[in-house]
């Protein structure tokens, strides 16, 4: 049923593809759209988590930024858009209204499947779907091909290596906010040759427990860099005041810095996996 709906959506959109006027409300969808060359059909963006991919910067700067976080209905409709994509949370009554409401106002909504799953294949499919919708199939295919190649190389390299225990720390002090087992982050760690110590949780990002980290004694710590607490401050906290300051990985500075957008379900995952993989293969003294 879902496939049929998707098919119908894509075909209807393809008929009117000349006139797509899209708004993208997440960094990963913005980056997908820019990467496949849909910049002329993009009216506005919002919700930038961190730096846009350098090679897309020039394109990105030409498109108006509606808001740092969720745009208001007024900002949104003022652009007269007919297509919306981005974080799912944007289509709620408090933000831009429900999907039904948006449709009634002539806005088609397409949310990526990969924001809910942990499969890299879903990202590929999302990119191909965008290619379809925006009539840029070839660019989308090439992008997916390139990502597959990059990830394939890393997979090949780690084929026979032993898995390394990894703790992926997002933020917070009283209880750590971590990468859980049900999201793209966990899959990326896995492909890069790591084993997420919180892989048995059912969230993609969520509250873990320091005691679990102590008990598992991970060999490496991935630190996700974004927001108002700088990477340096997070490291300083882990080393000086955190309950895990005595762990080998902390004492020996086995930290891997990764910006948040590299661990979100978009075109940066292949680079993200590369960052983690090369971090893990560093000399484990």
């Amino acid at each position: 049923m879902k496939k049929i709906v998707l098919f119908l959506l894509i075909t209807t959109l393809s008929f009117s593809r000349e006139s797509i006027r899209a708004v993208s409300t997440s960094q990963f969808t913005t980056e997908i759209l820019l990467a496949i060359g849909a910049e002329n059909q993009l009216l506005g963006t919002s919700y930038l988590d961190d730096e846009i991919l350098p090679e897309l910067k020039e394109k990105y700067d030409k498109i108006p930024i509606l808001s740092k976080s969720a745009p208001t209905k007024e900002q949104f409709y003022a652009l007269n858009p007919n297509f919306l994509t981005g974080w799912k949370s944007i289509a709620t009554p408090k933000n831009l209204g429900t999907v039904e409401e948006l449709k009634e106002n002539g806005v088609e909504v397409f949310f990526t499947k990969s924001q809910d799953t942990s499969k890299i294949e879903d990202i590929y499919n999302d990119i191909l779907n965008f290619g379809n919708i925006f009539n840029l199939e070839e660019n989308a295919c090439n992008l997916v091909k390139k990502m597959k190649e990059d990830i394939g190389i890393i997979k090949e390299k780690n084929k026979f290596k032993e898995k390394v225990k990894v703790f992926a720390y997002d933020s917070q002090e009283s209880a750590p906010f971590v990468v859980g087992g049900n999201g793209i982050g966990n899959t990326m760690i896995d492909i890069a040759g790591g084993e997420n110590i919180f892989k048995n949780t059912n969230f993609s990002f969520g509250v873990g427990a320091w005691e679990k980290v102590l008990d598992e004694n991970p060999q490496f710590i991935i630190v996700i860099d974004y927001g108002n607490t700088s990477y340096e401050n997070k490291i300083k906290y882990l080393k000086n005041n955190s309950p895990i300051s005595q762990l080998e990985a902390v004492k020996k500075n086995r930290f891997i810095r990764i910006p948040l957008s590299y661990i979100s379900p978009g075109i940066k995952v292949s680079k993200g996996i590369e960052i983690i993989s090369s971090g893990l293969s560093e000399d484990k003294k």
Partner: protein
Amino acid sequence: MKVKDRNIIIISLILIIILGTVAVTIGSVSLSPVHVWKILVNKILKREIFFIEWKKSTEMIVWNLRVPRVILALLSGAGLSLVGILMQALTKNSLASPYILGISSGASTGAVISIVLGSILGWSFSPGVGAFIFGTFTAFLVFYLAGNSGYSSTKLVLIGVAVSSLFSGITTFLVTTAKNESQLRGAMFWISGSLAGARWENLIILFLVLICSIILVTLKYRELNILIAGDELAETLGVDVKKLRFFIVIISTFLTGFIVSATGVIGFVGLVIPHICRGLVGSNHKRLIPCAILLGALFLLGTDTLTRVIFKTQEIPIGVITSMLGAPFFMSMLRKNSYNFGG
């Protein structure tokens, strides 16, 4: 009556020891109680009495995370109950508690302000300090606004409610304008309250403040009893009511400030435990104070343990459990016992 009191104290102490051990043993990682006790003995005596047959991480979990958390639960449970007793004696109003009087929400506003300001000014600002400063300020504000007519209890509670909504408005404003997710989560910690942040270095001050307050309040138990009977009667019996009120305000303000700065806002304990204890031992502060301190400590220890074990991977906010357990018990208590509040 005396035997009953002693029994309550003994039973509470035994329960605290048992529940304390249980709390240290279970959690997202289960540990053996034997190891737990051996680690504790080694750590307390600072010598290797027992041969170390456990992983280093077990020791860190027990000593750096769970023991401080148990102690924080005991200290803040005891402290909140004591504050509840003091405020109820001061206002002669059974609704008075730091939560109702708006001190807790003032403190959480302070914590959230320091989170937001810290990110704007770019240095790390301890939310605990913000909570303490604002909690203290709010308490003085509430008592100052209500103070002219000798703490009319209704007036005090109404002012408390007003101040409380003012501060929760400010907090909501700050939270909605929070720049990002991690700021939001940091703010949520102070609004919903949690004992997860317990660390040794923060416990010592709280312990000292609590002990001093308990001693001072216990010394004044007779005056508190008289105060409940009415200001005029107290004056004629030679109690300096003004001085006593000032004493109560200072102690309860500082104690609440220190507790909220360590745990965030945990409602209900300060309101319910004193009532339950009045039902158990009567309204004489000589018996009421020790009973409430022990029961409050036990109650918060129990609820905090529940928050950690209901779901293995995630904690439930402690306020949810305190009200879900405390409220029904409180209601049945009120129905069964018509104790004399005084006056």
